[in-house]
């Protein structure tokens, strides 16, 4: 009863502080913020490095990426799943937290759950924790991403049965094998969505002698990229700057070319899965072989990703429902059921 009364005043948040997107789940409301993790900073003229003001955060700032004049800088403060720019991350978190609680008269001071890559170091975890504290959190809990994915995908994490998850995010790919509410094996691979974009940029420069930006590369990836060599061929026309002549020109890319471009990062993801399976105790291995692997994150949306992984690993592959929000939903569920779910949180050493 007391809990229910106090619950009225609670404004707890679960945050998927991702390299590409930040999602915020508010208790009892669901995911109410999904914005790119981008901050645009304006430097005042002659003011030196200290004279900075935040120009835009999120969607608006993402549109400025690669299109800024000299005094504006569009920054992605997260890199490889961890904080690359501490101050900017704090500013971004503050902005997002204020945005989801704009009706509050008082300064919000919520409990916050943030997910971290399982391979992040103690220093990186502390940075994330302190960023959230600096943004006004009363208490900060960290949860490892594979655990969040498993909870978000409704897997029986607490049961004595093995579950395998793969989360292909923006900056990192996480492989985790879980049983009895804990992680049996986990690994982080700094190869993910951003790596695919870079691979596409490099491929276009090498093969077509043309420079394209990250935004274009991402558009290409979302439109035609396929993870499987036997997928249907699709094509897209893009424009960029020719290296030799320095003029804008257009080329047509096929999905087969893109497959070729991203095959290296794809291979390393497959290798990571194989390595995880090799390390798995036989009983859990049997469970996983029987049920399969759940894939979440933006990478799961790539065409025929499941077919490719099935073929290479020999496991049934299940794409989670709504894979982009799976981590945030898992964090949210961990928040809602903090008392019953047990110790699923990551602890500092």
């Amino acid at each position, binding site marked *: 009863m*007391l809990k229910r009364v106090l619950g009225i005043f609670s404004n707890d948040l679960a945050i998927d502080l991702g390299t590409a997107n930040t999602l915020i789940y508010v208790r009892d409301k669901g995911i109410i913020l999904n914005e790119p993790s981008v901050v645009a900073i304006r430097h005042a003229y002659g003011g030196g490095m200290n004279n900075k003001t935040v120009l835009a955060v999120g969607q608006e700032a993402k549109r400025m990426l690669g299109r800024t004049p000299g005094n504006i800088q569009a920054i992605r403060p997260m890199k490889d799943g961890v904080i690359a720019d501490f101050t900017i991350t704090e500013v971004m978190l503050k902005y997002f937290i204020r945005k989801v609680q704009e009706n509050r008269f008082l300064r919000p001071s919520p409990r916050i759950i943030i997910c971290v890559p399982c391979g992040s170091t103690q220093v990186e975890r502390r940075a994330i924790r302190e960023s959230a504290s600096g943004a006004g959190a009363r208490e900060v809990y960290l949860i490892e991403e594979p655990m969040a994915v498993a909870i978000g995908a409704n897997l029986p994490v607490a*049961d004595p049965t093995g579950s395998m998850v793969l989360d292909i995010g923006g900056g990192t790919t996480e492989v985790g094998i879980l049983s009895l509410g804990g992680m049996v094996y986990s690994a982080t691979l700094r190869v993910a969505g951003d790596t695919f974009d870079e691979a596409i940029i490099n491929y276009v420069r090498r093969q077509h002698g043309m420079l394209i930006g990250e935004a274009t590369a991402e558009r290409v990836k979302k439109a035609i990229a396929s993870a499987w060599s036997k997928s249907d061929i699709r094509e897209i026309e893009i424009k960029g700057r020719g290296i030799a002549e320095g003029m804008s020109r257009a080329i047509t890319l096929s999905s087969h070319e893109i497959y070729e471009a991203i095959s290296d990062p794809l291979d390393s993801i497959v290798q990571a899965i194989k390595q995880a399976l090799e390390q798995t105790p036989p009983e859990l291995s049997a469970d996983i072989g029987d049920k399969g692997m759940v894939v979440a994150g933006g990478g799961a949306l790539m065409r025929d990703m499941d077919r490719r992984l099935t073929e290479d690993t020999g496991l049934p592959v299940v794409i989670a429902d709504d894979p982009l929000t799976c981590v945030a939903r898992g964090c949210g569920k961990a928040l809602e059921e903090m008392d019953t779910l047990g110790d699923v949180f990551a602890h500092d050493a």
Partner: protein
Amino acid sequence: MLAANVPRPGAALRKAREKLALSMEDVAHELRLSVSQIKALEADNYTDLPGMTYVRGYLRSYARLVKIDEDLVLPPFQPDPVSSPARTIAQPIRRQAKSGDRWVRMISYSVVVVLVALVVLWWQTQVGLDFNDGLFTQKSGDDAGQDPSPGGAPRVETVVTSSFKQAAGEASGPAPDIVPRSEPEASEGHVDSSANQQATSAKIKSPLRVDTDQAQPATAMIVLTFKDASWAEIRDATNKRLLHQSLNPGRVVSVEGVPPFRVFLGNASAVSLEYNGKPFDLTPYQTGLYARFVLKGHEQAQ
């Protein structure tokens, strides 16, 4: 289990598979599932399958393999984070109250608020009281911390000190008729007196006249009338502070003690002094704003 209003996907999947001339084994091989799992999917029997997350994934893959729209075989996804199988986890540890818990915080905040309120309340009740060495012990009830209005009746405050009492007790041996008159005043010294100036001066004149009639007066009286705010300090023969206070305009203060008195007035031009009922000229003693002088026992009553 799938909702009842959704068409059972097993039959549609089987039909599509047969149309493509694929056997169950082919599908099982492609999806890396067992033939029994494919059979269960086609029979819409999910009891032996690992859970809805997996079943949805299998159906989606199967539909894609046999090239039918996955929306036809899947009920729409509704994220429902509250109802999860994870609720059944064994949780043996009782949660302990930590300082960070919300209710612990709320209780401590309310205790702090109550304490602060009590302190403010106590302070408010204390504000009206004067603490000047315990010398000034009388004050009319309606005078607490307020300046009297200029047109209002001036109040007389009588200061009686223990040194005076002792002095009076010692010195009044030869004049026993003074003691009964001064003793009641001494005992009433702590009681508020709202009497006007005339009444009080009339009241105090009689002992003074007795004193002057006597060869050597034991005590003397100073009456100070303040036209403006001023600091006043008066010490008697025993160096006891009879008055040590900043006084507001309109106040009339009378002080009794053993002469000689050492008097210091901060704003001398705004003060008129009566010594033993007679006006006393302060101008010869004024240096700048203040005046400092000594009142001897039997002189200067001009």
